[in-house]
Protein backbone atom coordinates (compact mmCIF):
# COMPACT_ATOMS: atom_id res chain seq x y z
CA UNK A 1 0.00 0.00 0.00
CA UNK A 2 2.81 2.42 0.79
CA UNK A 3 4.42 1.88 -2.60
CA UNK A 4 1.11 2.51 -4.35
CA UNK A 5 0.96 5.91 -2.67
CA UNK A 6 4.21 6.99 -4.38
CA UNK A 7 3.69 5.65 -7.87
CA UNK A 8 5.05 2.20 -7.12
CA UNK A 9 8.42 3.30 -5.73
CA UNK A 10 9.61 0.81 -3.09
CA UNK A 11 13.02 2.17 -2.20
CA UNK A 12 14.27 5.60 -1.18
CA UNK A 13 17.81 6.74 -0.50
CA UNK A 14 17.81 9.32 2.28
CA UNK A 15 20.39 10.96 4.49
CA UNK A 16 19.44 11.14 8.16
CA UNK A 17 20.98 10.87 11.64
CA UNK A 18 18.18 8.78 13.15
CA UNK A 19 15.57 6.30 12.05
CA UNK A 20 12.84 8.78 12.93
CA UNK A 21 14.27 11.57 10.78
CA UNK A 22 14.80 9.13 7.91
CA UNK A 23 11.17 8.03 8.01
CA UNK A 24 9.87 11.58 8.40
CA UNK A 25 11.61 12.54 5.17
CA UNK A 26 9.55 10.01 3.19
CA UNK A 27 6.52 11.09 1.14
CA UNK A 28 4.47 8.52 3.08
CA UNK A 29 5.47 9.92 6.48
CA UNK A 30 1.89 10.88 7.34
CA UNK A 31 0.85 7.26 6.90
CA UNK A 32 3.70 5.86 8.97
CA UNK A 33 3.23 8.38 11.80
CA UNK A 34 -0.01 9.57 13.37
CA UNK A 35 -1.02 13.20 13.85
CA UNK A 36 0.97 13.35 17.12
CA UNK A 37 4.10 12.16 15.36
CA UNK A 38 3.97 8.71 16.91
CA UNK A 39 4.79 5.63 14.86
CA UNK A 40 1.55 3.83 14.11
CA UNK A 41 0.96 0.80 16.25
CA UNK A 42 0.89 -1.74 13.43
CA UNK A 43 3.93 -0.48 11.53
CA UNK A 44 7.11 -2.37 12.30
CA UNK A 45 10.51 -0.86 11.52
CA UNK A 46 13.64 -2.90 11.03
CA UNK A 47 17.22 -1.61 10.69
CA UNK A 48 19.44 -4.14 8.95
CA UNK A 49 17.02 -6.82 10.01
CA UNK A 50 16.61 -5.86 13.66
CA UNK A 51 13.41 -4.43 15.11
CA UNK A 52 14.13 -0.85 16.23
CA UNK A 53 12.26 -1.58 19.46
CA UNK A 54 15.37 -3.56 20.40
CA UNK A 55 17.40 -0.37 19.90
CA UNK A 56 16.26 3.17 20.65
CA UNK A 57 13.11 3.17 18.55
CA UNK A 58 12.82 6.29 16.41
CA UNK A 59 15.91 7.71 18.14
CA UNK A 60 18.07 4.84 16.90
CA UNK A 61 21.23 6.40 15.43
CA UNK A 62 22.25 5.78 11.85
CA UNK A 63 25.86 5.73 10.71
CA UNK A 64 25.30 5.96 7.00
CA UNK A 65 24.66 2.71 5.18
CA UNK A 66 21.86 0.96 6.98
CA UNK A 67 18.82 -0.48 5.30
CA UNK A 68 15.53 0.41 6.95
CA UNK A 69 12.47 -1.71 6.20
CA UNK A 70 8.86 -0.87 6.93
CA UNK A 71 6.62 -3.88 7.44
CA UNK A 72 2.93 -3.96 8.32
CA UNK A 73 2.54 -5.99 11.49
CA UNK A 74 0.80 -9.30 11.69
CA UNK A 75 -2.66 -8.31 12.84
CA UNK A 76 -4.64 -11.48 13.24
CA UNK A 77 -8.02 -10.88 14.80
CA UNK A 78 -8.48 -7.45 13.31
CA UNK A 79 -11.76 -7.08 11.45
CA UNK A 80 -10.35 -6.65 7.98
Amino acid sequence: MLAAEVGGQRRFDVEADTVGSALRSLPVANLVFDERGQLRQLVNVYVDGTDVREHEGMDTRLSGSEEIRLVAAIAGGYST
Partner: protein
Amino acid sequence: MPALLVGTRKGLFVLSSDEDRRDWEVSDPLLTGWEVFHAVPDPRDGSVYAATNSFVYGATVHRSEDRGETWTRAEELGLPEETGLTLEKTWHVRPGREGEDGRLWLGGAPGVLFRSDDSGRTWKTVQSLVGHESREKWNPGAGGMCCHSIQLDPDDPNRMYVAISAAGTFRTEDGGESWEPANSGVAADFFPDNPFPEVGQCVHKLLVHPSRPERLWQQNHCGVYRSDDQGRNWERLEGNGLPSGFGFPIMLDPSDPETAFVIPEEGAENRVTPDGRLGVYRTQDGGQSWELLEGGLPEPAWVAVLRESSSFDDGGVYFGTQSGSVFASADGGDSWVEAATHLPPILSVEAADWR
Protein backbone atom coordinates in the same frame (compact mmCIF):
# COMPACT_ATOMS: atom_id res chain seq x y z
CA MET B 1 -23.52 8.05 -18.36
CA PRO B 2 -24.79 6.83 -14.97
CA ALA B 3 -22.12 5.44 -12.68
CA LEU B 4 -21.89 4.34 -9.09
CA LEU B 5 -18.89 4.77 -6.82
CA VAL B 6 -19.01 1.74 -4.54
CA GLY B 7 -16.74 1.93 -1.52
CA THR B 8 -15.93 -1.40 0.08
CA ARG B 9 -13.93 -2.89 2.91
CA LYS B 10 -11.26 -3.62 0.30
CA GLY B 11 -11.10 -0.79 -2.17
CA LEU B 12 -13.30 1.23 -4.50
CA PHE B 13 -15.25 -0.11 -7.48
CA VAL B 14 -16.86 1.91 -10.25
CA LEU B 15 -20.06 0.55 -11.79
CA SER B 16 -21.11 2.09 -15.07
CA SER B 17 -24.24 1.71 -17.14
CA ASP B 18 -26.37 3.45 -19.75
CA GLU B 19 -29.56 5.42 -19.26
CA ASP B 20 -31.58 2.20 -18.84
CA ARG B 21 -29.58 1.31 -15.72
CA ARG B 22 -30.15 -2.43 -16.25
CA ASP B 23 -26.73 -3.65 -17.35
CA TRP B 24 -23.73 -2.60 -15.30
CA GLU B 25 -20.04 -2.96 -15.88
CA VAL B 26 -17.87 -3.39 -12.79
CA SER B 27 -14.34 -1.98 -12.70
CA ASP B 28 -11.31 -3.58 -11.17
CA PRO B 29 -10.70 -2.42 -7.61
CA LEU B 30 -9.18 1.02 -7.07
CA LEU B 31 -7.45 2.22 -3.91
CA THR B 32 -6.63 -1.38 -3.09
CA GLY B 33 -6.00 -2.08 0.56
CA TRP B 34 -8.01 0.92 1.71
CA GLU B 35 -11.40 0.76 3.35
CA VAL B 36 -13.42 3.28 1.35
CA PHE B 37 -16.00 4.65 3.75
CA HIS B 38 -17.34 7.08 1.12
CA ALA B 39 -16.39 8.20 -2.37
CA VAL B 40 -18.00 11.12 -4.12
CA PRO B 41 -17.64 12.94 -7.43
CA ASP B 42 -17.07 16.69 -7.37
CA PRO B 43 -19.38 18.06 -10.06
CA ARG B 44 -17.39 21.30 -10.15
CA ASP B 45 -14.30 19.82 -11.76
CA GLY B 46 -14.92 16.09 -12.30
CA SER B 47 -12.51 14.95 -9.63
CA VAL B 48 -13.30 12.15 -7.15
CA TYR B 49 -12.71 12.21 -3.40
CA ALA B 50 -12.62 9.19 -1.11
CA ALA B 51 -12.69 8.96 2.68
CA THR B 52 -10.16 6.16 3.16
CA ASN B 53 -9.12 4.20 6.21
CA SER B 54 -6.55 1.53 6.91
CA PHE B 55 -6.11 -0.54 10.03
CA VAL B 56 -2.37 -0.10 9.56
CA TYR B 57 -1.96 3.40 8.12
CA GLY B 58 -4.83 5.32 9.66
CA ALA B 59 -7.47 7.68 8.28
CA THR B 60 -7.06 9.98 5.31
CA VAL B 61 -8.67 11.36 2.13
CA HIS B 62 -7.67 10.56 -1.43
CA ARG B 63 -8.35 12.61 -4.56
CA SER B 64 -8.26 11.59 -8.20
CA GLU B 65 -8.40 13.91 -11.19
CA ASP B 66 -8.48 11.07 -13.73
CA ARG B 67 -11.40 8.95 -12.52
CA GLY B 68 -9.37 6.75 -10.28
CA GLU B 69 -6.34 6.05 -12.42
CA THR B 70 -4.03 7.98 -10.10
CA TRP B 71 -4.59 9.38 -6.62
CA THR B 72 -3.09 11.97 -4.34
CA ARG B 73 -3.53 11.97 -0.59
CA ALA B 74 -4.24 14.71 1.93
CA GLU B 75 -1.01 16.22 3.18
CA GLU B 76 -2.33 17.74 6.38
CA LEU B 77 -5.21 16.11 8.22
CA GLY B 78 -5.51 15.68 11.95
CA LEU B 79 -6.89 17.15 15.13
CA PRO B 80 -4.98 19.84 17.05
CA GLU B 81 -3.32 18.57 20.19
CA GLU B 82 -5.29 20.98 22.39
CA THR B 83 -8.53 19.20 21.48
CA GLY B 84 -7.30 16.13 23.33
CA LEU B 85 -8.69 14.08 20.44
CA THR B 86 -7.07 12.09 17.67
CA LEU B 87 -8.62 11.27 14.31
CA GLU B 88 -10.02 7.74 14.29
CA LYS B 89 -11.77 7.47 10.91
CA THR B 90 -12.78 9.57 7.94
CA TRP B 91 -16.42 9.00 7.06
CA HIS B 92 -17.92 11.40 4.56
CA VAL B 93 -16.72 13.96 2.02
CA ARG B 94 -19.00 16.71 0.75
CA PRO B 95 -17.86 19.01 -2.08
CA GLY B 96 -18.72 22.67 -1.60
CA ARG B 97 -21.14 24.63 -3.71
CA GLU B 98 -20.68 25.85 -7.25
CA GLY B 99 -18.43 28.90 -7.01
CA GLU B 100 -16.77 27.80 -3.75
CA ASP B 101 -13.65 26.71 -5.59
CA GLY B 102 -11.55 24.18 -3.73
CA ARG B 103 -13.88 23.96 -0.73
CA LEU B 104 -14.80 20.61 0.75
CA TRP B 105 -16.17 19.34 4.02
CA LEU B 106 -15.08 16.13 5.70
CA GLY B 107 -16.79 14.30 8.54
CA GLY B 108 -15.01 11.84 10.74
CA ALA B 109 -14.75 10.15 14.10
CA PRO B 110 -14.74 11.08 16.95
CA GLY B 111 -17.54 13.49 15.99
CA VAL B 112 -15.36 15.88 14.01
CA LEU B 113 -15.71 18.08 10.95
CA PHE B 114 -12.96 19.48 8.72
CA ARG B 115 -12.95 22.07 5.96
CA SER B 116 -10.57 22.28 3.03
CA ASP B 117 -10.13 25.29 0.78
CA ASP B 118 -7.43 23.79 -1.43
CA SER B 119 -9.20 20.80 -3.01
CA GLY B 120 -8.40 18.42 -0.19
CA ARG B 121 -4.65 19.00 0.17
CA THR B 122 -4.95 20.43 3.67
CA TRP B 123 -7.85 20.24 6.12
CA LYS B 124 -8.68 22.58 8.99
CA THR B 125 -10.65 21.45 12.01
CA VAL B 126 -14.05 23.13 12.39
CA GLN B 127 -13.43 24.11 15.97
CA SER B 128 -16.98 25.36 16.59
CA LEU B 129 -18.26 21.80 16.24
CA VAL B 130 -15.32 19.90 17.70
CA GLY B 131 -15.48 22.16 20.76
CA HIS B 132 -19.28 22.34 20.88
CA GLU B 133 -20.63 23.07 24.34
CA SER B 134 -22.82 19.94 24.28
CA ARG B 135 -19.98 17.61 23.38
CA GLU B 136 -19.78 15.98 26.79
CA LYS B 137 -23.31 14.64 26.17
CA TRP B 138 -22.35 12.92 22.92
CA ASN B 139 -21.72 9.18 22.83
CA PRO B 140 -20.24 6.84 20.25
CA GLY B 141 -22.47 4.37 18.43
CA ALA B 142 -21.35 0.92 17.37
CA GLY B 143 -19.38 2.44 14.49
CA GLY B 144 -17.63 5.02 16.64
CA MET B 145 -18.75 8.60 17.12
CA CYS B 146 -19.00 9.32 13.44
CA CYS B 147 -19.88 12.54 11.67
CA HIS B 148 -21.49 10.80 8.70
CA SER B 149 -23.91 13.26 7.12
CA ILE B 150 -23.02 16.69 5.73
CA GLN B 151 -25.82 18.44 3.88
CA LEU B 152 -25.65 21.87 2.26
CA ASP B 153 -28.73 24.04 1.79
CA PRO B 154 -28.77 24.68 -1.97
CA ASP B 155 -30.48 28.07 -1.52
CA ASP B 156 -28.53 29.57 1.39
CA PRO B 157 -24.71 29.51 1.24
CA ASN B 158 -24.46 29.89 5.01
CA ARG B 159 -26.84 27.09 6.03
CA MET B 160 -25.72 23.50 6.34
CA TYR B 161 -26.35 20.48 8.52
CA VAL B 162 -24.25 17.71 10.01
CA ALA B 163 -25.37 14.55 11.75
CA ILE B 164 -23.30 12.63 14.26
CA SER B 165 -24.05 9.28 15.84
CA ALA B 166 -24.86 9.57 18.67
CA ALA B 167 -24.92 13.33 19.10
CA GLY B 168 -27.77 14.23 16.76
CA THR B 169 -28.33 16.76 14.01
CA PHE B 170 -26.76 20.22 14.11
CA ARG B 171 -27.54 23.23 11.89
CA THR B 172 -25.37 26.22 11.12
CA GLU B 173 -26.69 29.42 9.57
CA ASP B 174 -23.39 31.27 9.56
CA GLY B 175 -21.25 29.02 7.41
CA GLY B 176 -20.01 26.86 10.27
CA GLU B 177 -19.13 29.54 12.84
CA SER B 178 -21.76 28.20 15.24
CA TRP B 179 -24.00 25.14 15.43
CA GLU B 180 -27.44 24.69 16.91
CA PRO B 181 -28.85 21.27 17.88
CA ALA B 182 -31.79 20.35 15.61
CA ASN B 183 -33.31 17.37 17.39
CA SER B 184 -36.67 18.56 18.70
CA GLY B 185 -39.13 15.70 18.49
CA VAL B 186 -36.48 13.08 17.78
CA ALA B 187 -36.50 10.25 20.29
CA ALA B 188 -33.54 8.79 22.13
CA ASP B 189 -35.37 5.77 23.55
CA PHE B 190 -32.08 4.45 24.95
CA PHE B 191 -32.28 7.25 27.56
CA PRO B 192 -35.46 6.08 29.37
CA ASP B 193 -35.21 8.85 31.96
CA ASN B 194 -35.03 11.55 29.26
CA PRO B 195 -36.11 10.18 25.86
CA PHE B 196 -36.18 13.62 24.18
CA PRO B 197 -32.88 15.31 25.11
CA GLU B 198 -31.50 18.36 23.30
CA VAL B 199 -28.58 16.28 21.97
CA GLY B 200 -27.48 12.66 22.05
CA GLN B 201 -29.84 11.29 19.42
CA CYS B 202 -28.54 8.46 17.30
CA VAL B 203 -29.22 9.72 13.80
CA HIS B 204 -28.11 7.16 11.25
CA LYS B 205 -28.46 9.21 8.06
CA LEU B 206 -29.66 12.73 7.30
CA LEU B 207 -30.73 14.15 3.92
CA VAL B 208 -31.94 17.53 2.72
CA HIS B 209 -34.42 17.37 -0.13
CA PRO B 210 -32.66 18.99 -3.09
CA SER B 211 -35.69 20.78 -4.51
CA ARG B 212 -37.38 21.65 -1.19
CA PRO B 213 -34.43 22.33 1.10
CA GLU B 214 -36.47 23.23 4.16
CA ARG B 215 -37.55 19.55 4.16
CA LEU B 216 -35.18 17.15 5.89
CA TRP B 217 -35.42 13.39 6.29
CA GLN B 218 -33.58 11.17 8.68
CA GLN B 219 -33.33 7.48 9.40
CA ASN B 220 -32.61 7.23 13.10
CA HIS B 221 -31.82 4.47 15.57
CA CYS B 222 -35.29 5.29 16.95
CA GLY B 223 -37.45 5.73 13.89
CA VAL B 224 -37.81 7.52 10.58
CA TYR B 225 -38.43 11.29 10.71
CA ARG B 226 -39.30 14.24 8.48
CA SER B 227 -38.87 17.93 9.21
CA ASP B 228 -40.46 20.70 7.15
CA ASP B 229 -38.77 23.59 8.94
CA GLN B 230 -35.03 23.07 8.54
CA GLY B 231 -34.81 20.61 11.38
CA ARG B 232 -36.47 22.77 14.02
CA ASN B 233 -39.19 20.18 14.58
CA TRP B 234 -39.39 16.55 13.54
CA GLU B 235 -42.29 14.16 12.99
CA ARG B 236 -41.86 10.42 13.60
CA LEU B 237 -43.17 8.44 10.63
CA GLU B 238 -43.10 4.76 11.44
CA GLY B 239 -45.91 2.39 12.38
CA ASN B 240 -47.77 2.88 9.12
CA GLY B 241 -46.45 0.12 6.93
CA LEU B 242 -42.85 -0.15 8.07
CA PRO B 243 -41.95 -3.44 9.76
CA SER B 244 -39.40 -1.64 11.92
CA GLY B 245 -38.27 1.90 12.63
CA PHE B 246 -34.66 0.77 12.78
CA GLY B 247 -32.40 1.02 9.76
CA PHE B 248 -29.55 2.98 8.28
CA PRO B 249 -29.97 4.15 4.67
CA ILE B 250 -32.51 6.59 3.30
CA MET B 251 -33.00 7.67 -0.32
CA LEU B 252 -35.04 10.43 -1.94
CA ASP B 253 -36.57 11.30 -5.30
CA PRO B 254 -35.07 14.64 -6.33
CA SER B 255 -38.18 15.49 -8.37
CA ASP B 256 -40.73 14.64 -5.65
CA PRO B 257 -40.30 15.85 -2.05
CA GLU B 258 -43.08 13.49 -0.88
CA THR B 259 -41.12 10.37 -1.84
CA ALA B 260 -38.51 8.59 0.28
CA PHE B 261 -37.14 5.07 0.53
CA VAL B 262 -35.81 3.18 3.55
CA ILE B 263 -34.51 -0.35 4.14
CA PRO B 264 -35.56 -1.43 7.65
CA GLU B 265 -33.69 -3.86 9.83
CA GLU B 266 -35.20 -5.99 12.55
CA GLY B 267 -33.83 -3.84 15.34
CA ALA B 268 -30.82 -2.52 17.19
CA GLU B 269 -29.92 -5.90 18.66
CA ASN B 270 -30.34 -7.87 15.41
CA ARG B 271 -29.25 -5.71 12.52
CA VAL B 272 -30.51 -7.69 9.57
CA THR B 273 -33.50 -7.69 7.22
CA PRO B 274 -36.74 -8.51 9.11
CA ASP B 275 -37.78 -12.14 8.49
CA GLY B 276 -35.14 -12.47 5.77
CA ARG B 277 -37.14 -10.12 3.55
CA LEU B 278 -34.85 -7.66 1.75
CA GLY B 279 -37.37 -4.93 1.13
CA VAL B 280 -37.18 -1.33 0.13
CA TYR B 281 -40.06 0.61 1.63
CA ARG B 282 -41.31 3.65 -0.25
CA THR B 283 -43.51 6.50 0.82
CA GLN B 284 -45.12 8.84 -1.68
CA ASP B 285 -47.07 10.87 0.84
CA GLY B 286 -44.34 12.37 2.97
CA GLY B 287 -44.04 9.35 5.25
CA GLN B 288 -47.68 8.92 6.21
CA SER B 289 -47.73 5.45 4.66
CA TRP B 290 -45.12 3.03 3.33
CA GLU B 291 -45.30 0.24 0.76
CA LEU B 292 -42.97 -2.71 0.29
CA LEU B 293 -41.05 -2.86 -2.97
CA GLU B 294 -39.52 -6.24 -3.69
CA GLY B 295 -39.51 -6.73 -7.45
CA GLY B 296 -36.23 -8.34 -8.41
CA LEU B 297 -34.87 -8.49 -4.89
CA PRO B 298 -33.78 -11.93 -3.61
CA GLU B 299 -35.66 -13.85 -0.92
CA PRO B 300 -34.71 -15.00 1.57
CA ALA B 301 -31.88 -12.55 2.04
CA TRP B 302 -30.44 -12.06 5.51
CA VAL B 303 -28.48 -8.93 4.73
CA ALA B 304 -27.77 -5.46 6.03
CA VAL B 305 -27.23 -2.12 4.33
CA LEU B 306 -24.92 0.39 5.99
CA ARG B 307 -25.64 4.09 6.41
CA GLU B 308 -23.57 5.29 3.42
CA SER B 309 -24.61 2.45 1.16
CA SER B 310 -27.50 4.04 -0.68
CA SER B 311 -27.80 6.79 -3.24
CA PHE B 312 -30.08 8.30 -5.84
CA ASP B 313 -29.95 10.51 -8.91
CA ASP B 314 -32.49 11.87 -11.41
CA GLY B 315 -33.02 8.43 -12.94
CA GLY B 316 -32.44 5.82 -10.27
CA VAL B 317 -32.16 4.63 -6.69
CA TYR B 318 -29.34 2.37 -5.55
CA PHE B 319 -28.09 0.45 -2.56
CA GLY B 320 -25.34 -2.00 -1.66
CA THR B 321 -25.24 -4.75 0.97
CA GLN B 322 -22.64 -5.85 3.46
CA SER B 323 -22.63 -9.12 1.55
CA GLY B 324 -21.31 -7.42 -1.58
CA SER B 325 -24.31 -6.94 -3.85
CA VAL B 326 -25.41 -3.68 -5.48
CA PHE B 327 -29.04 -3.23 -6.50
CA ALA B 328 -30.34 -0.56 -8.86
CA SER B 329 -33.82 0.58 -9.83
CA ALA B 330 -34.66 2.86 -12.73
CA ASP B 331 -38.43 2.94 -12.12
CA GLY B 332 -38.71 4.51 -8.72
CA GLY B 333 -38.12 1.28 -6.83
CA ASP B 334 -40.80 -0.86 -8.48
CA SER B 335 -38.21 -3.24 -9.91
CA TRP B 336 -34.56 -3.88 -9.15
CA VAL B 337 -31.58 -5.42 -10.90
CA GLU B 338 -28.50 -6.81 -9.19
CA ALA B 339 -25.87 -4.52 -10.68
CA ALA B 340 -22.94 -6.29 -9.02
CA THR B 341 -22.40 -9.26 -6.77
CA HIS B 342 -19.56 -10.85 -4.82
CA LEU B 343 -17.89 -7.53 -4.08
CA PRO B 344 -16.19 -7.11 -0.69
CA PRO B 345 -18.48 -5.85 2.09
CA ILE B 346 -20.00 -2.60 0.82
CA LEU B 347 -19.49 0.51 2.93
CA SER B 348 -20.82 3.19 0.59
CA VAL B 349 -22.64 3.84 -2.66
CA GLU B 350 -22.70 7.22 -4.41
CA ALA B 351 -24.23 8.05 -7.78
CA ALA B 352 -22.05 9.86 -10.27
CA ASP B 353 -22.71 11.34 -13.68
CA TRP B 354 -19.78 9.97 -15.67
CA ARG B 355 -19.93 12.06 -18.84
